[in-house]
């Protein structure tokens, strides 16, 4: 859970990046943060990652007050988050597999775990055959999927996507968003910063609109209503999926990933056909 209590961030030059923000994001939400550039969207993400600390107020993530967190604890906080950048941030001299493995290696994950987990997340994003390729050999959409796979590598409870579709063509944008939706269905909180209006309208999510450092609109209530309704509607379409994702902590990757993967691909195809 993420909570902002009276949070303001003023930069040394005197401009207010965010001003008196109050916000609560529950576990498992799918949240869009929208607004023009300079609205304070990125500052909010930085505050959540504790790349910045607020000038005033409190930021609480998973029950921990980030303003009181010691610097040495920050890496452990970040391990609970996965970040997807607009510019992918992939290391080109590494293969796709290595790029994903890198995120696990630098957090001290055992090689045996990496060997199992990387193919799993690559399959999840539909890139199981691309492991030996280098990022430059892939399309923008594929690169962003690698970036998502990397963000998922350390099993985060929160995915932060900063303009994930900014460098991807519209069709591929839907794929990325669908993947994020699927990740959300598996119980991961997803935060998407975007300025692409059509994505926000097409994909059901809570929308937080920002302007000049302030929240000017928050659709939390409608989001919950809509989500409950959609969940009921899509029960047939995703029959069996929820059970799998609910059980994910008890099952191993190999037990259910084939099934999830199949469903994700089917879903992507469905939506592509609809378009």
């Amino acid at each position, binding site marked *: 859970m993420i909570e902002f209590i009276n949070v303001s961030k003023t930069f040394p030059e005197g401009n207010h990046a965010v001003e008196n923000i109050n916000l609560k994001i529950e576990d498992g939400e799918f949240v869009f943060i929208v607004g023009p550039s300079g609205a304070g969207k*990125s500052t909010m*993400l*930085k505050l959540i*990652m504790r*790349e*910045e600390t607020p000038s005033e107020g409190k930021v609480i993530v998973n029950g921990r007050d980030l303003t009181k967190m010691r*610097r*040495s604890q920050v*890496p*452990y*906080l*970040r*391990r609970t*988050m*996965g*970040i997807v*950048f607009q510019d992918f*941030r992939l*290391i080109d001299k590494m293969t796709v597999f290595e790029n994903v493995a*890198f*995120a696990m*290696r*630098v*957090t*001290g994950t055992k090689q045996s775990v990496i060997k199992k987990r990387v193919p799993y997340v690559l399959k999840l994003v539909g890139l199981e055959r691309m492991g030996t390729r280098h990022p430059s050999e892939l399309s923008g959409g594929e690169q962003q999927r690698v970036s998502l796979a*990397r963000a998922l*590598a*350390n099993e985060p409870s929160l995915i932060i996507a*900063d303009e994930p579709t900014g460098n991807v063509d519209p069709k591929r944008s839907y794929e990325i968003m669908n993947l994020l939706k699927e990740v959300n269905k598996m119980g991961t909180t997803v935060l998407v910063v975007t300025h692409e209006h059509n994505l926000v309208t097409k994909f059901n999510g809570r929308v937080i609109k920002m302007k000049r450092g302030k929240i000017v609109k928050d659709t939390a209530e409608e989001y919950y209503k809509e989500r409950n309704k959609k969940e009921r509607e899509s029960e047939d379409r995703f029959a069996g999926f929820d059970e799998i994702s609910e059980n994910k902590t008890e099952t191993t990757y190999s037990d259910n990933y084939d099934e999830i993967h199949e469903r994700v691909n089917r879903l992507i195809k469905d939506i592509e056909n609809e378009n």
Partner: protein
Amino acid sequence: MYFLKEGFKNMAHNRMMTLASIGVLIAGMLLTGTAALFSMNVKLMVEEVGDSNVTTVYLDESITAEADAMAIGDELSKLGNVLTVDFYSRDDAIEEYREELGEEIFANMQGENNPLPHAFKVTFNDLSKYDETVQQIMAIEGVDSVGNTRDVANKLTSLNETITNLSIWIVIALAVISLFIISNTIRMSMFSRRFEISIMKSVGATNHFVRVPFIIEGMMIGLISGIIASGAMYFIYDILVSAINSIFVFNTIPFMSVFVYVAVGFIVAGMAIGVIGGAISIRKHLKKEGKEVLNW
């Protein structure tokens, strides 16, 4: 294993700066080593000279008859602090120069033409009373001067001190330069890997994890420099010894007897400078966290 691999990767990636750092470190180590070994040899010489404890008492040139000289010798023996008195005639003295002078000149410097005075080689009981005894000797009529190896020892000691003082400054200056170059080398390799570092930081790598490969890079630069410098020191020492021997013929310290100390000293000092240099630059870089590390 991961850290070692990354450390080597950094070095390979950053070849020119790595080589420059190794070069500067080697130069520093060789200068330090040369100064230290020179100083050790001079100390050995001073000891040898001091041990010989022989003072030469030169008589007036006017005293040409050996009998007159022997009378002065008797007076010398009577002095309390004098242990032995050996006569060293002017004929013996000129004989020592025979080779240098050449036979013709030597032949012309016999008897009346010998420019050298008679002398006595004297040893003392108690060297602490040296100055006092010398005064007593000078008071004896017919004694011209007292020359002694102590002067040589004193001169060598002061030379040694000068060299030591000078080398301390040179070593400090070189250590600072090496530190600067190594920390710049590591800063460059960090700069070239800043993208990777930013990803590492964003997925939750600890500062320690980010730091270690660069510290290893510094350590490896120090280690390689230490090994090369130890080998090079062997040859330089040879040159140093022959240079010393061309001035004075003395026993010198055999290199192999100090090799272990030289090698261990070089390697430890090199690695220490490397680690400190690396730590300085990575500290600076990681302090930027939140500003440029994630570069968002």
